């Protein structure tokens, strides 16, 4: 027997969680895009898409976040710190790739110095992953040695049962158990079988690619120039990526008062590494694309023993010129 959360009870659950003080966040379909957002009713949630257009990252690391406001006086600088939002929240219905993305970035935000903006939110969030039963041409979690029902980064895993009737509940962590204890009255014992998770074909052999990337000779390979020739240098791949974590610190305001903010930044921009002198260590688009791939599959795992890619495929899905990690790694495995 398995415990099942029936979808017609979702509204009650959301209400229950909300009355217990949790903010409920989940995938919503807006007019123009789909994204993870806070909802008031279970019916606002939409599980129809393969995965939301925008990644889960932005709920932990927003595109712009005020850090400190300052007021400069004659002999004094007054500062007030902004704190990340407090309060428990439950993120219901993430995809495995998005949840893995969070787990991948944890060591980065936590090595040595702990980034409170990230960890405050991480500590307060319960991640409820729904195993995928459909995929599209760009999904590639299996190629990254993850799976459509990967539990990485998740506190609870839900497996859909037939006819969208609900989900089988698998609690994975204490945090997940606590959150589901709140709605235990809506969890029913039932023998319904789960729909098998989708089979995502493997698109490339990761080990071959990583070995190629780790070979120092290939750093100067002309492959990089060829593969990135059509890259236009926008940041849509990095900004939609669930693991890309680069940021910029910017002051906004006038001479006497303003706010210091943490904003997304991207390695695709020339200005990212440009020195004031005009010297740019990564002066060409091919060097920048190489940095992105190397960082994800060579440098990052070298430091944190995990690839900085969870295989969501958003980079390829959204690219204006149809590039992406998938294509690059496929080409590398052919070399």
């Amino acid at each position, binding site marked *: 027997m398995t415990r099942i959360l029936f979808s017609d009870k979702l509204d009650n659950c959301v209400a229950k969680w909300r009355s217990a003080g949790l903010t409920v966040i989940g995938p919503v379909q807006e007019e123009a895009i789909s994204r993870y957002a806070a909802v008031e009713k279970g019916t606002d949630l939409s599980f129809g898409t393969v995965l939301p257009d925008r990644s889960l990252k932005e709920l932990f690391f927003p595109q712009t976040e005020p*850090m*400190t406001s*300052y007021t*400069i006086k004659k*002999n*004094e*600088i007054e*500062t007030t*710190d902004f704190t990340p939002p407090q309060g428990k929240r439950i993120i219901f219905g993430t995809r495995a790739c998005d949840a893995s993305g*969070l*787990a991948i970035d*944890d060591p*980065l*935000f*936590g*090595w*040595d*110095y*702990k*980034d*409170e903006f990230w*960890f405050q939110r*991480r*500590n307060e969030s319960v*991640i409820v992953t729904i195993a995928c039963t459909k995929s599209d041409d760009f999904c590639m979690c299996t190629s990254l040695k993850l799976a459509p029902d990967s539990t990485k*980064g998740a506190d609870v895993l839900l497996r859909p049962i037939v006819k969208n009737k609900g989900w089988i509940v698998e609690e994975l*962590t*204490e945090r997940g158990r606590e959150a589901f204890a709140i709605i235990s009255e809506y969890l029913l014992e039932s023998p319904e079988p789960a729909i098998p998770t989708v089979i995502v074909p493997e698109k490339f052999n990761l080990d071959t690619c990583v070995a190629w990337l780790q070979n*120092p000779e290939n*750093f*100067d390979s002309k492959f990089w120039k060829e593969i990135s020739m059509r890259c236009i240098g926008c940041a849509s791949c990095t900004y939609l990526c669930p693991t890309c*974590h*680069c*940021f*910029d*610190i*910017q*002051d906004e*305001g006038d*001479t*006497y008062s*303003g706010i*210091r903010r*943490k904003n997304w*930044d991207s390695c695709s921009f020339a200005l*990212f*590494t*440009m*020195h*004031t*002198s005009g*010297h740019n*260590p*990564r002066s060409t688009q091919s*060097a920048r694309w190489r*940095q992105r791939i*190397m*960082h994800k599959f060579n*440098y990052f795992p070298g*430091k944190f023993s995990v690839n900085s890619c969870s295989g969501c495929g958003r980079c390829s899905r959204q690219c204006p010129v149809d590039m992406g990690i998938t294509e690059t790694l496929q080409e590398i495995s052919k070399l």
Partner: protein
Amino acid sequence: MTENIQIAQQNIYKPAIMKIVGRHDEAPGVRTMRLEFQDPADHEQFKKTYRTGMFGLYGVYGEGESTFCVASPETRKEYIECTFRQSGRVTSALANADIGDLVTFRGPYGNRFPIEEFHGKNLLFISGGIALPPTRSVIWSCLDQREKFGKVTIVYGARTVADLVYKHELEEWQERADVDLVLTVDPGGESPDWKHRVGFVPTVLEEAAPSPDNCIAVICGPPIMIKFTLISLKKLGFDEANVYTTLENRMKCGVGKCGRCNVGSVYVCKEGPVFTAAEVSRMPAADL
């Protein structure tokens, strides 16, 4: 996540407030400032952590932060000295700040020169132009405990006589019997009363021909100077492992998160800025 991560109470991106207590123009557009901590707690923290070679993020609220070395040695921790060239938005704002004004400092970050390992050895400092400040920090760390080291040689060059920084300290080193100072300016940069050498640093270095025996070399300078000086040092017989240099890259966080300062797999902000020439030669040259 299975367990909660303990978060430090303070925002890690929040700088300490510093008061400018002294400033000195070194060369056209280059200025040295002496900063004092306003909060004793910040100062204690600095005293505890600062070692020669580390860098900091100096900033002005409203303009931003910019990265350069701490030019004062670890033997003098009552204040921070920094030397910078006015070139961008932040350095312009710093240059406009007057004595008594408040600026910010975040750090010290990065690694250090392993000064204890230099004990008992001869030291060769090679520096060019605005890159003397990081070298100066090491020089003073050693000169403040002069007895622990062997022969000290300093080779310093700049484009023109006016571009030499720390002119008063150069005079001081010139007069010290226990320091061998070789000064040079690029051809065409000499003034009528210039008494020192004329020529590029690598050439002058080869002429001075310091012995590589039991010697540690510290080089700081523009990339092109470093490139040719390393060749000269090799010619003179220096081992790459005994040659130290510092790398600089654009930084925003200073603590290994913002993702822009890496050269190959090496994060300059965490694993640098001090590297041996051997370490640098293993990095992809195209990324420097």
